[in-house]
């Protein structure tokens, strides 16, 4: 009964979303506020409705209604409560529901604000968000219905359907298959919602951009209105990516965090354009330039969000992450076609109205450097996009599949990332508008000196890899520049008011959250770069089958195999766990317990590495369950991952920097009211 009601709610919401599209269009062309108001109300109503349906689904999941195909496929009796709940997004159908729910939440939130000054934008914001929402709801209703239940047909087959096929008998399995073990990890539990939050939040600035294009408003109002949305979208997308890395590192057992898998890349691509957008909107806000470019970037970001979702879910690409093959491909394709073509047509139509109010004056101004930053991000995007799309082209032309793997991306993107690091150091020292190479040079030389010492010191310490030397020098350069900027700001603050350093720092950051938060984010990025350089350039690995008491050496560590135990665990898995002692020379450092879990219900094994993590390096041991394991001897694969912890430390710093950057400025509300 609940399932039918849930489905009914979805159908109702879908109709409501369609109504809101229609009403908004009528309202715009008839210049009727009443129609627009009706559209707005309808839009807002979708949120409680989808919330209701989502709650119903959550209830069905938690209470184990295995007669529903979705519940059957992602939960089982032995799963703990929180996993049953998070199974909501453990499969294609549920994750589409989550997507719709977030979409309606954001769309409702954005239509709640006061609209007096931007009345003409409202109908089109509603149109774009409602169309997107209606599309995702239609996928749920037509193809990926989480409320479909099991039936046994007259032919004896079991089929999931919403309504009974002729002569079919309802079937209720006693237990479900359970959630994919790979998804039973804290990182994986929050990674998808984070990514979706990021994806969905980018729809809002896109909707405003389209509204601005349709109505022909060429000012930067849409950017100001959506600035915080963009930041939030970017934060969640970033967090989603980082959590995904952490999950891969902890759970996949290959000693790395990023495999340049097409699905990873399709989540990275909107991040690239989003990051470029965050930088280039500043130019539009400050200088009124690059309006066309910003429009293009936000359209591209939205397009890449949809494109990435399509690639992952349609079966065009297959990868470890991909959802199982599904029928949503053609529908998705139509949606992509319509949105891409409309956006591009609108942009071309309005192109000439978006000319800059002022023009570029110097190659060394901050806006020029920002543009260079955008170019580099676009470069990385081209590499990623081409790498993802090329196997498709190759397969169509030659009939042969090819793999485009890490070596390609590393070689192509490495220099671009290096250049971005360098820019991160240079740009904060440049001035808006009229920087010259002289003023820039004058600002640069001070932080350059300590940075120049870094490679010398490193070379003396025995680092001879030139990529490492260049990379760490750039990292040092950015750190020095950023700290120098803080220091100079604090000093100027102190000149005005006689306060101590910390108070001055507090006041300084308080006066411009965005600037100093941004610097903190830059710092976090280079800290992450330290970790990435460390693991990419200096990772070593060795594998050996050990008898009990034997040991294996790597990077100055000795690991001794002590024992192996096997025991069942309450949630239906059999755990096989090895104990190893770690020594450095003769010094005992601790024990490591690599293990693998075998989920009897799904027949799926999980490899969990034993990790000893320090600021200097990670020791990452995998019990190689795909070779012959017994109590007397077992094969181990050991990775030595230098500096990788800085990647995670950088991520935490990133969140802090973001909070500073996005913290509401005190006069914000005042100004918003004034405008």
């Amino acid at each position, binding site marked *: 009964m609940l399932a039918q009601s849930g489905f009914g709610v979805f159908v109702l919401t879908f109709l409501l979303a369609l109504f809101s599209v229609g009403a908004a269009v009528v309202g715009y062309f008839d210049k009727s506020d009443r129609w627009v108001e009706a559209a707005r109300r309808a839009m807002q109503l979708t949120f409680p409705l989808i919330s209701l349906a989502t709650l119903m689904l959550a209830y069905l999941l938690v209470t184990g209604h295995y007669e529903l195909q979705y519940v059957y496929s992602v939960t089982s009796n032995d799963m703990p409560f929180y996993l049953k709940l998070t199974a909501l997004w453990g499969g294609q159908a549920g994750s589409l529901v989550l997507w719709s729910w977030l979409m309606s939440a954001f769309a409702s939130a954005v239509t709640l604000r006061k609209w007096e000054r931007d009345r003409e934008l409202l109908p089109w914001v509603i149109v774009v968000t409602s169309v997107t929402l209606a599309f995702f709801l239609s996928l749920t209703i037509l193809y990926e219905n989480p409320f479909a239940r099991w039936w046994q047909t007259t032919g004896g087959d079991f089929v999931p359907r919403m309504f009974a096929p002729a002569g079919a008998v309802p079937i209720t399995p006693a237990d479900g298959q359970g959630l994919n073990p790979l998804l039973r990890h804290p990182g994986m539990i929050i990674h998808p919602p984070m990514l979706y939050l990021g994806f969905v939040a980018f729809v809002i600035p896109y909707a405003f951009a389209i509204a601005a294009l349709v109505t022909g408003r060429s000012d930067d109002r849409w950017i100001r209105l959506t600035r915080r949305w963009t930041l939030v979208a970017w934060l969640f997308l970033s967090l989603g990516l980082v959590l995904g890395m952490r999950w891969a590192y902890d759970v996949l057992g290959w000693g790395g965090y990023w495999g340049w898998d097409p699905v990873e890349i399709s989540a990275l691509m909107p991040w690239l354009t989003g990051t470029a957008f965050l930088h280039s909107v500043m130019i539009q806000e400050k200088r009124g330039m690059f309006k066309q470019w910003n429009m293009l970037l936000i359209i591209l970001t939205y397009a890449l969000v949809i494109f990435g979702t*399509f690639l992952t879910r349609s079966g065009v690409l297959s990868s470890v992450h991909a959802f199982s093959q599904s029928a949503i491909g053609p529908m998705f*394709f139509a949606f992509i*076609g319509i949105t*891409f073509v409309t956006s591009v047509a609108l942009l071309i139509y309005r*192109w*000439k109205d978006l*000319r800059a109010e*002022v*023009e570029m004056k110097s190659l060394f101004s901050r806006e020029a450097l920002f543009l260079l930053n955008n170019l580099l991000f676009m470069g990385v995007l081209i590499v990623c996009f081409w790498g993802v799309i090329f196997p498709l082209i190759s397969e169509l032309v030659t009939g*042969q599949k090819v793999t485009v793997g890490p070596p390609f991306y590393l070689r192509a993107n490495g220099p671009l990332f290096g250049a971005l690091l360098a820019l991160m150091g240079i740009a904060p020292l440049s001035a808006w508008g009229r920087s010259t190479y002289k003023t820039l040079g004058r600002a640069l030389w001070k932080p350059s000196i300590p940075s120049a010492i870094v490679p010398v010191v490193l070379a003396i310490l025995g680092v001879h890899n030139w990529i490492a030397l260049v990379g760490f020098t750039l990292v040092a350069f950015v750190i020095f520049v950023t700290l120098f900027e803080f220091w100079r700001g604090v000093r100027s603050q102190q000149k005005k008011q006689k306060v101590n350093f910390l108070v001055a720092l507090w006041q300084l950051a308080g006066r411009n959250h965005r600037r100093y938060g941004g610097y903190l984010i830059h710092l976090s990025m280079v800290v992450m770069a330290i970790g990435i350089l460390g693991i990419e350039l200096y990772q070593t690995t060795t594998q050996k089958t050990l008898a009990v008491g034997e040991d294996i050496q790597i990077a100055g560590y000795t690991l001794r195999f002590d024992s192996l135990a096997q025991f069942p665990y309450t949630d239906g898995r059999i755990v096989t766990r090895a104990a190893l002692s770690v020594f450095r020379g003769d010094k005992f450092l601790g024990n490591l317990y690599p293990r693998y879990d075998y989920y009897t219900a799904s027949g799926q094994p999980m490899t969990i590495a034993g990790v000893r993590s320090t600021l200097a390096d990670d020791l990452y041991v995998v019990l190689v369950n795909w070779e012959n394991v017994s109590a007397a001897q077992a094969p181990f694969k050991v990775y030595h991952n230098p500096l990788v912890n800085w990647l995670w430390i950088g991520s935490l710093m990133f969140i802090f920097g973001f909070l500073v950057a996005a913290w509401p400025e005190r006069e914000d509300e005042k100004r918003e009211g004034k405008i």
Partner: protein
Amino acid sequence: MSQEPNTTPAPKRGVPLWAQILVWIGLLGLLGLLAAGLLKAKNPILSIGSSVPDFTLTLFSGYEYNGASEVKLSDLSDKVVVINFWASWCQPCRTEAADLETAWRSYEETGQVVFLGVDYVDTEPEAREYMTEFNLSYPNGPDMGTRISQIFNRNLGVPETYVVDQQGVLRFIQIGPFQSVAEIQAIIDPLLVGR
């Protein structure tokens, strides 16, 4: 709000025609590519009733076809061809291997049916053990460069069996193992009746 005064109003120009054309070509190209990818993502690629493109199967020594070390589909145009994809690492394949061999023996005399075993991404020593274990006597060979499997199915999952009739038309697709000899014969026999 703090923009500088318009120093030099730039001439208002739209997107040049060549750029527009380029953009649209690029966009349509991308959409076309996705559409083609989507069509290929269908499993299997070939549908029943379509004619099967020609291919050549190189054969393991000891598993030749009439003494030849390779066999071409187009050379078997007057016969029913049963193309079975298998691999030594594939557990379900083992359940049907003996049935396939029995079915083959039942047709061997007639000369109207050919069984081709296509060893999908496998290693030769293990493949040979497998063929010995099940006493396979029909022609078998490796799917070199996965060229043959890609004709039939983009994401092939062994075992899969494709039955091609005397005209080179695909008549039957079996995904997963056969359960019995009779099941195999029930598919092949009707194709022989028309002769």
